[in-house]
């Protein structure tokens, strides 16, 4: 099936989200769609999936114009979408999830007929080496397999064009490789794939053709064989981008964070952090790698006073601190939380209010019982220019900002005071190359000012680029601490996946940890 978008234009009040975008995907082809956040990728895909109507322009399938009034039309036309957030019912089995919406029934009583579905799921799974058991409960499956269930869902609906929206965001590097193998198998079978991403190396690895979107326009197409990351990044951002973080060797000084024997439970009461020890020194970045859900979030929350510590000690700047967010703040700890809209910002508050969010209680932002609104606005205006936050005014609610600018609001707030320790969790998640570059530079600058930085990330690029020491966390423990020069993607990937480091390196890790203490 050949899919073509011709001069698609979509305008939201005040924003031209898609400006005469033309693209096409041929039979058995993978189109990499590359673009920063806010470039219009998601809008375009939502148009293609029937969720939005274009203001002008046509969608053509095999050269025939089609109109999609809803996802139902798009699915019927053979378009399948795997969203970044999976649309699965956890307590249903794989087969039940696959069937949902296109239930097959038997007999006059319209009883559900699962056997047909199970057979078909098994066939699809075997054909593309997916290794999915149709009778497994989705809630028992790892994230990578859930994603494959989503893919099966689209194939079961006979999709000829598969849209994958940032599919690797939730995967380990190994799972990512597996996904690419699956994508190749699908393409070999004649399926077309639109692969949306902002990761340059992935698109180079897997796409047959690359289209780059910027500010709602296709700014260029490229052949992966003839281009490289630098060229793509330049196209995507519109200016040359420094992909390598410039930094001098760390000069670690006194410990600013000492964690020993820490035990923390997650929201469901399960042990998330088990007997964890770590030290962060002033002037260094300790980067913690790990697949999401291995206790990194809980570790960060415990240190910043957001989560109760069950057992163990946390010392900040050599002192035992009462672990409440405000006490931790007073002791010079900055916190870039994992989820900026859930934790770090009040989306309905304006920028000035968000910049005052955790310092509103003291001068100069407030005096006595009253807030000093003039001071709030003045400070916010300073931060906006200093941190290059793109906004029409300080009174703009942060919900209206792009992800990158939202993150800059948090960074502006947390970095604008002397810090002993900075806890940064996924500081660049979902951000575009330009913003990532910016935030990385800020982190290194903060390190060079003498702050200790605990960086938690699932992005290995980030871990390796920034970490002065690299710890791998698996099932609530730090399984290994590596020097950056010995931390290859492969080694990190294996450790993140639960492979036991050889005895020797375990001892090394212990020795390193002991040294650090």
């Amino acid at each position, binding site marked *: 099936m050949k899919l073509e978008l011709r001069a698609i234009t979509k305008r939201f009040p005040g*924003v031209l989200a898609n400006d005469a975008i033309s693209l096409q995907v041929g039979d058995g082809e993978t189109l990499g769609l590359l673009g920063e956040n806010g470039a219009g990728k998601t809008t375009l895909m939502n148009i293609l999936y029937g969720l939005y109507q274009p203001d002008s322009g046509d969608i053509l399938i095999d050269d025939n114009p089609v109109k999609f009034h809803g996802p139902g039309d798009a699915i019927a036309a053979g378009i399948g979408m795997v969203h970044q957030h999976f649309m699965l019912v956890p307590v249903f089995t794989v087969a039940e999830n696959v069937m949902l919406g296109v239930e097959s029934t038997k007999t006059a009583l319209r009883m559900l007929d699962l056997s047909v579905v199970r057979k078909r799921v098994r066939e699809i799974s075997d054909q593309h080496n997916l290794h999915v058991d149709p009778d497994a409960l989705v809630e028992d499956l790892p994230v990578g397999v859930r994603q494959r269930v989503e893919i099966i869902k689209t194939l079961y609906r006979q999709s000829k064009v598969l849209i994958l929206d940032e599919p690797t965001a939730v995967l380990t590097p190994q799972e990512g490789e597996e996904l690419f193998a699956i994508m190749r198998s699908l393409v070999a079978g004649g399926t077309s794939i639109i692969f949306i991403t902002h990761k340059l190396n992935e698109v180079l690895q897997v796409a047959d053709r690359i289209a780059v979107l910027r500010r709602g326009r296709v700014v260029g197409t490229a052949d992966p064989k003839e281009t490289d990351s630098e060229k793509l990044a330049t196209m995507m951002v519109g200016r040359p981008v420094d992909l390598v973080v410039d930094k001098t060797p760390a000069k670690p000084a006194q410990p600013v964070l000492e964690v020993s024997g820490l035990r923390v439970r997650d929201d469901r009461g399960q042990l998330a952090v088990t007997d964890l020890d770590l030290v962060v020194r002033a002037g260094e970045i300790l980067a913690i790698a790990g697949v999401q859900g291995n206790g990194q979030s809980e570790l960060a929350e415990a240190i910043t006073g957001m989560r109760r510590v069950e057992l163990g000690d946390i010392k900040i700047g050599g002192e035992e601190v009462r672990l409440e967010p405000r006490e931790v703040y007073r002791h010079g700890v900055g916190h870039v939380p994992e989820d900026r809209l859930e934790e770090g910002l*009040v*989306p309905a508050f304006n920028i000035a209010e968000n910049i005052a969010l955790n310092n509103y209680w003291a001068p100069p932002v407030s005096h006595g*019982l009253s807030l000093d609104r003039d001071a709030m606005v003045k400070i916010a205006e300073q931060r906006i220019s200093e941190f290059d936050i793109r906004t029409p005014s300080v009174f703009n609610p942060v919900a209206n900002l792009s992800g990158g600018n939202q993150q800059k609001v948090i960074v502006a707030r947390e970095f604008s005071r002397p810090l002993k320790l900075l806890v940064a969790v996924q500081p660049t998640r979902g951000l575009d190359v330009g913003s990532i570059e910016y935030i990385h530079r800020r982190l290194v600058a903060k390190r060079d000012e003498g702050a200790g930085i605990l960086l938690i990330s699932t992005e290995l690029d980030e871990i390796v680029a920034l970490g002065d020491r690299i710890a791998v966390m698996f099932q609530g423990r730090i399984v290994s601490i590596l020097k950056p020069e010995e931390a290859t993607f492969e080694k990190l990937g294996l450790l993140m996946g639960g492979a036991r480091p050889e005895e020797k390196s375990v001892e090394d890790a212990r020795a390193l940890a002991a040294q650090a203490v």
Partner: protein
Amino acid sequence: MSADTTVSEDGIDLPPPAEPTTSRGSWLRRALGAIALPLLALFSAAVVGGIVIIAGNRDVVGLLETDLPAGLSAGWSVIIDSYAALIRGALGDPAQLVSALVSLDPHALVDAFHPLAETTLSSTPVILTGLSVALAFRAGLFNIGGEGQLQLGALASVLVGFSIQGLPWFIHLPLALIAGIIAGAAWGFIPGFLKARTGAHEVITTIMLNFIAIQLVGFALRTPLYQRPGRTDPISKSIEPSAVLPPLVDGLRAHWGIVLAIIAAIFVSWLIFRAKKGFEFRAVGLNPIAARYAGMNIGATTVLAMMAAGGLAGLAGSAVVLGTTHNLIPNLGGGAGFDGIAIALLGRSRPSGVVAAGFLMGALRAGAVPMQVATGTPIYLVVVIQALIIMFIAAPALVRAIYRIKASRTIGAEAFAKGWGA
């Protein structure tokens, strides 16, 4: 978040606005935008109310069956007469007002201003309970307990009002008012504390506390402490003259309670938008996780917000017993505690909006009886109109669809209407 948000999912930056947001023109436009919806809701309610007036009028219905044109014209004049009487009853007769102002005859003035005074009197308690609901809502809490808090406030104020004798008014009156505020705040403390400690939903607890408060008043009024000597029905002793909230003008029933209500509105406005505590209220209300991240104490903020809300509703009870009735009987205030919910919704949880909505409701109530006297349209029509306004306000999408208005970004009222599941 409102579903109407026009930012696409991948968060496109807004372009700079065509004109600076501080300019006069856009300020005016925003103000108009903010009141357009309530005004259209009011208009729609009046239209539907007109149909109700005709349907309830036997003469017109009979005429409609036999002679349609005559029936329609009769129906039209009944509607116009009813609404004219309603407005005259709420705001007064313009001619009478003018001649009274010209003659400056005290009696004529009192007569002419009688309807406005009645409107003021009716709006006093509902402005206060509306503020109570609005304040709690800003902190993410649904205070359905305004009625109970009002009753408790009245119970405390009336006790201080009749049991202490020989004090000068400038001590006695404040004492009685403060007693009402404290009692309301205490009644608000309970659901706040239960929510903070156990997570008990304040909608459930405040509703239950309303029942308890109402029964408590019924019980108290039959105890020797409260019950008026020589009476067998539940009615309290009368308060001392030194505890009376004096009338604004001799001869009219409107009293200084309205001034307290306006002061309360200014205070709430300061609290929400200018005070440190209000910043916490709003942060907790909009995003409790971020509020906790920012070092705010969610539990304490919840308790404090409910106490402040309770205090406002308690003051509403005080204003009624000290200003209007001078004693306490069951069912005091005629459901003002519940009307507060509607008024906060209508006023979009803004103090200025609550005052305006309170006056509107007060006007409807004050005009209802003169309307029935003049045209025979039953006073219950006012209740129907009131309910219709709220329904139109609660369904902004409906009003927008009727009048083909484009969705705005404002989320106050919609969030309030949609937020009940939270």
